[in-house]
């Protein structure tokens, strides 16, 4: 495992008076796969969304390599970055959503080349070639000209992964990527993710798939009420949890 890519320090987030994240510290190393687990409402999605600044923080900081995400220091305080800077930083993270969120008015190929063309201003030929490669790697090269609604959920999620990969992200964030899928389609998406993990992609994955977490993750992190209550090597934590709340959660999910 390489050096630290992603660092979260004392991350706090409230909605109104509801404190959703209460001081999260988390380091993710290059090529590491971290699974975030925890009961519904524990703050997993919120944590993921603070990482690429889809949600601003109330306190604490997120660093990608050594770059502060979402803010710059000015006169002893943090000032939120402007739209352009935020966009530039977000492009360095890939994000895969529970509901896929493919662009319905674009074909599969257009979905994948959109960000490389508009954000990175790649030439169409280069973007296209790479998109076709990525679609091939997720097994969907033959559906390049289809519209998302004509694909199964599993296929849509694989396109969404290809779309995120097209920006060559430093870290890939997954928010319950298989929760909206019919059971028989979960496997094909998890296979793609396994493949990515084996290829050295740095990933933070919110999931309820315990088997996947045990087999693929380097580390499992348990969240409850906005704090990390237990973490460690995935096999250890999932097989022999020390905390009562972790044990309870695991018996519920299984």
């Amino acid at each position, binding site marked *: 495992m390489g050096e630290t890519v992603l660092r979260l320090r004392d991350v706090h987030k409230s909605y109104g008076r509801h404190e959703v994240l209460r001081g999260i510290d988390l380091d993710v190393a290059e090529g590491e796969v971290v699974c975030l687990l925890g009961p519904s409402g524990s703050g997993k999605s919120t944590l993921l969304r603070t990482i690429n600044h889809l949600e601003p923080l109330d306190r604490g900081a997120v660093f990608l390599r050594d770059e502060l995400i979402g803010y710059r220091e000015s006169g002893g305080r943090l000032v939120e970055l402007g739209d352009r800077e935020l966009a530039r930083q977000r492009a360095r993270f890939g994000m895969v959503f529970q509901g896929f969120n493919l662009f319905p008015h674009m074909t599969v190929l257009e979905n994948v080349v959109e960000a490389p063309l508009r954000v990175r201003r790649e030439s169409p030929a280069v973007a296209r070639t790479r998109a076709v490669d990525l679609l091939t790697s997720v097994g969907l090269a033959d559906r390049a000209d289809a519209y998302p609604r*004509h694909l199964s959920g599993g296929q849509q999620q694989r396109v969404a992964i290809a779309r995120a990969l097209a920006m060559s992200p430093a870290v890939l964030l997954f928010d319950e990527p298989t929760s909206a899928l019919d059971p028989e389609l979960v496997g094909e998406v998890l296979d793609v993710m396994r493949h990515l993990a084996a290829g050295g992609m740095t990933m933070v994955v919110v999931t309820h798939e315990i088997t996947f977490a045990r087999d693929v993750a380097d580390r499992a992190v348990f969240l409850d009420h906005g704090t990390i209550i237990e973490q460690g090597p995935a096999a250890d934590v999932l097989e022999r949890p020390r905390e009562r709340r972790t044990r309870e959660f695991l018996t519920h999910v299984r």
Partner: protein
Amino acid sequence: MTTETRPPAAPPRVDTSRRTRAPLHLGWWLAAAVIGLTLLNIGSVVVRSPNLDWSVVWEYFLSTDVLAGLARTVELTAIAMACGIVGGVILAVMRLSPVPVVSWAAKSYVWFFRGTPLLVHILFWYNLAALVPAIAVEIPFGPTLFEVDTNDLITPLLAAVIALGLNEAAYMAEVVRGGLLSVDPGQTEAAKALGMTHRQTLRRVVVPQALRVVIPPTGNQVISMLKASALVSVTSTPELLYSVQVIYNNNFKTIPLLVVASAWYLIVTSVLYVVQHHLERRFSRGTGRG
């Protein structure tokens, strides 16, 4: 209970490709008869009535005055609609603003214009000089830089455009807002997460999807606007209706000239329907209706 095993149903010994539909209910035949008779009656009145002189209709259908009025109506509709769309987009964006004063202002605007008759607005702008005789640009407590007579600045045509445009903006604001809200917030998130700026997200992701929702009601608004522009005839603006009014006030061929105007309104709305249909097809990409 006895369970008998029956032999599987044999296919009927007929040519199964020969079939007729179930007979229609008697009520439909009656309805068709009533409609047919009514149309025949109207037709005979229209064709035979001495007051509906078709030669007069043909005489004026392509006359210069009528065509000029038609052009003015189309122009008025286009300009007022353009103002309405621009105003509507601005109001819709204001309405969704996080700043309460801004969104309140947009809301109040819509409330006011939807709650007062268009005809009143047309008369108001036409008679603006009665409220503000002159319009001036001046430095407060200082010299006047520029001053014009309101009646010179606000011509009847401009008054009509202002009244129709301001009114339309209120309706278009609701149409546009509905379109923007119809786009799943997940779309914006996905676009942002890919590194798109606010502008790119709007242009490439939100607007194309909102348009699909916005186009059908906008088409209806254009058609309403075309017809509402006839209200402007009260201010002697020579649009289509006023043009035929001028003619029939001279020759008293009221009905034939109203037929002329109606025929033109129908022709233009029919063209608009076709345009709307094509736009809808174009923007329904990826929704399975395209």
